[in-house]
């Protein structure tokens, strides 16, 4: 989840700084950027844990890391993206959207990360029980 956090933070600021949209939607651009960068950073952080623990090479290590992180990350983003939708459509709708440059945005994204942490917990428990993710 730490990798996801890094990826999401970088993506949020990139989408904001470059004013990116997908089909006219900022949220779609945020979701896409967040997911892609979170997966990249997530797999990287898993790799640096799994490869030394199991003595794997680069290719096998990356495959094992991807297996360990994909479901965990997706479950995390379900919580975070759900919260972002609540932020955008319920708490701060159209003319009052929060921008990543504001303190309120950062605070509410912290809340979103905590929600993502909770939605990722069952996925991680399953991964550990199945032996796909090996506890340190």
């Amino acid at each position, binding site marked *: *989840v*730490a990798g996801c956090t890094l990826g999401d933070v970088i993506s949020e600021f990139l989408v904001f700084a470059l004013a990116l949209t997908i089909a006219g939607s900022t949220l779609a651009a945020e979701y896409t950027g967040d997911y892609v960068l979170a997966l990249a950073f997530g797999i990287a952080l898993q790799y*640096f*844990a799994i490869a030394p623990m199991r003595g794997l090479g680069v290719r096998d290590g990356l495959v094992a890391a991807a297996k360990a992180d994909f479901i965990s990350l997706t479950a995390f983003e379900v919580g975070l993206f759900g919260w972002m939708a609540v932020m955008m459509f319920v708490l701060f709708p159209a003319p009052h959207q929060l921008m990543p440059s504001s303190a309120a945005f950062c605070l509410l994204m912290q809340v979103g990360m*905590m929600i993502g942490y909770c939605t990722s*917990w069952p996925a991680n428990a399953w991964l550990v029980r199945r032996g796909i993710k090996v506890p*340190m």
Partner: protein
Amino acid sequence: MGVMNFVFPITALYFGPLALWFYLRWGRVPRSVTMAHAPAGSAVAAHAGPGATAHAPGGPPNSAAPLAGQPAPDRGRPWRVTMATEVSH
């Protein structure tokens, strides 16, 4: 695990003081593991868990001994602590 040197600070970005408390309580390597000259079999080493005591010279064979290069998770650590660490990572 070196990667946790990055994971804990990142976790603190959103979990704040809670992450700091968790790190200080559960995230740090036990002191006896970092003390190179701790006498084997001493009370200090005995508290380090199976990973540290399994290799004590002259000690009894330990059925819970981890394979070489595969540190076993500390059995004194509650499941929820293991999971909280894994989720944060």
